[in-house]
């Protein structure tokens, strides 16, 4: 009663809403890069929105269902195909025993998600099923999935197929403007650097992965280059490196850092950033904390709306 991994894909891991409570031990939260995509496909299946899912990059894995079970795909559109039949992104479908799911080509985005109805049976480590590769723990053996792995189902069920309405579907873009809140050292930016930061675009370089995205663009500098002692950082923290370039910390970031913190990407916009890959670009727009909190609450309201809609539709 498992999902059999026929091919692993380049970086396929089990992720959920992240592991909190252990940052003071240097254990970072991990978790899905695109939390909204994870939540949406879980809700399509009637799962808890933070249930563990499979996160994939392209080329993605190939999976065989060893039992009848509904599943859903979302996030980046990697051209899901079940036994030769295309499965629309942001929809759920029923797989029968022996059916094979693969991903044929990348239409948009960089991180795709696969959820199964009832969730995967993965032991929790420190309260989460997410894979923490640095710690070698969580997920399946603390590592990326490999061909031959079997991921158990918790409670495989088939349910009515659903498709996310167009208003709920995230719109990814290769050059988004994401909203940020000023960070601790924002006020130390020179006037020109502040303008550069907020008006120019920055390229996502090849040195970009689940730990962080290194950006390249016009260099940025601070008025004061006092040395800093390390302090906690988080998913979305934009640090300024000594060479004047920035790095945005992503889901597998280290728990602490000693570089100036210019800004933090707001949680509501992290999914837009998480779908970028090398060669894409990003711009930044400053918002207030109140606005960031409002946007987070609005996203929660949307998810709540979907949760109710799915429940009454099943």
């Amino acid at each position, binding site marked *: 009663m498992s999902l059999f991994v026929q091919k692993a894909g380049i970086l396929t891991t089990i992720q959920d809403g992240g592991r909190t409570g252990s940052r003071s031990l240097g254990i970072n939260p991990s978790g899905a890069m695109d939390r909204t995509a994870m939540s949406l496909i879980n809700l399509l299946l009637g799962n808890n929105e933070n249930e563990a899912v499979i996160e994939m990059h392209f080329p993605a894995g190939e999976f065989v269902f060893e039992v009848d079970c509904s599943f859903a795909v979302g996030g980046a559109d990697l051209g899901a195909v079940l036994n030769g039949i295309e499965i629309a992104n942001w929809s759920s479908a029923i797989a029968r025993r022996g059916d094979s799911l693969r991903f044929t080509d990348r239409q948009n985005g960089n991180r795709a998600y696969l959820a199964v109805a009832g969730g995967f049976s993965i032991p929790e480590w*420190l309260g989460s099923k997410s894979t923490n590769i640095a710690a070698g723990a969580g997920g399946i053996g603390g590592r990326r999935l490999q061909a031959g792995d079997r991921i158990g189902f918790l409670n495989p069920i088939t349910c009515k197929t659903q498709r996310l309405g167009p208003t709920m579907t995230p719109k990814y873009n290769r050059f988004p403007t994401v909203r940020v809140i000023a960070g601790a050292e924002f006020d130390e930016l020179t006037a020109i650097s502040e303008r550069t930061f907020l008006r120019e675009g920055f390229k996502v370089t090849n040195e970009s992965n689940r730990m962080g995205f290194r950006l390249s663009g016009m260099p940025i500098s601070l008025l004061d280059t006092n040395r800093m002692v390390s302090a906690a950082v988080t998913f979305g923290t934009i640090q300024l490196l000594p060479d004047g370039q920035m790095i945005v910390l992503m889901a597998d970031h*280290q728990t602490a850092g000693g570089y100036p913190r210019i800004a933090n990407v707001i949680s509501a916009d992290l999914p837009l950033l998480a779908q970028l890959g090398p060669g894409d670009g990003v711009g930044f727009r400053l918002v207030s904390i109140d606005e960031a909190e409002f946007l987070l609450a609005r996203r929660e309201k949307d998810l709540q709306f979907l949760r109710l809609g799915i429940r009454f539709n099943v």
Partner: protein
Amino acid sequence: MRIFPLGESALTVEFGNEISLELNRRSISLAAFLSANPFHGMVEAVPAYSSVTVFYDPLKVLRPHPQSSSSFAAVETMIREIVNRIEDTEINGRRIIEIPIHINEDSSPDMEAVCEFGGLDSKSVVDLFLGRNYRVYMLGFLPGFAYMGEVDERIAAPRLKTPRTKVPAGSVGIAGLQTGIYPLESPGGWNIIGRTDLKMFDAGSGEPCLLRPGDEVKFFAY
């Protein structure tokens, strides 16, 4: 003291911007107090050298504070009130952890560099290093990696110009006044002067990390 947002789901309470025993004690005390007395919506409190970062769920925080303009404002007010109230002492009983290390050619590849830095022979370096206990200021970089200090100025060799691509698990390093133990094999730029066989990080254990912020570490050679 300065309080600033780290995104909309966390804020940092910065007592200062230096490595100091007093600021670190304040940070660990506040984090311990918050962990023992979490407010509604709090996720976790993470101490660092001279700051504490408090993670929270902004959607939950406001419920008991309907008069606040934002979750950030509510948490900031609570934290300022707590900081004024709590005793500036270590809440956890201070633990002393003894860590046996090998010091030999194989496990101390940077001994020569540290000797050169201080103009000392290796026996003097070892004596200076083992001659005092070290405080765990914070954990970070890797699961269970403890930033400790402070080493004697004469052995406070700066980081390697070119970090190694592989430092074995258990390696004990010096970077300026800091010392630390690599819990896992990893790239790293600290001057390695010894190695312990103790497991600093064990994912399978109920308490995966041997050291906690505020611990005192005593190294001995064997």
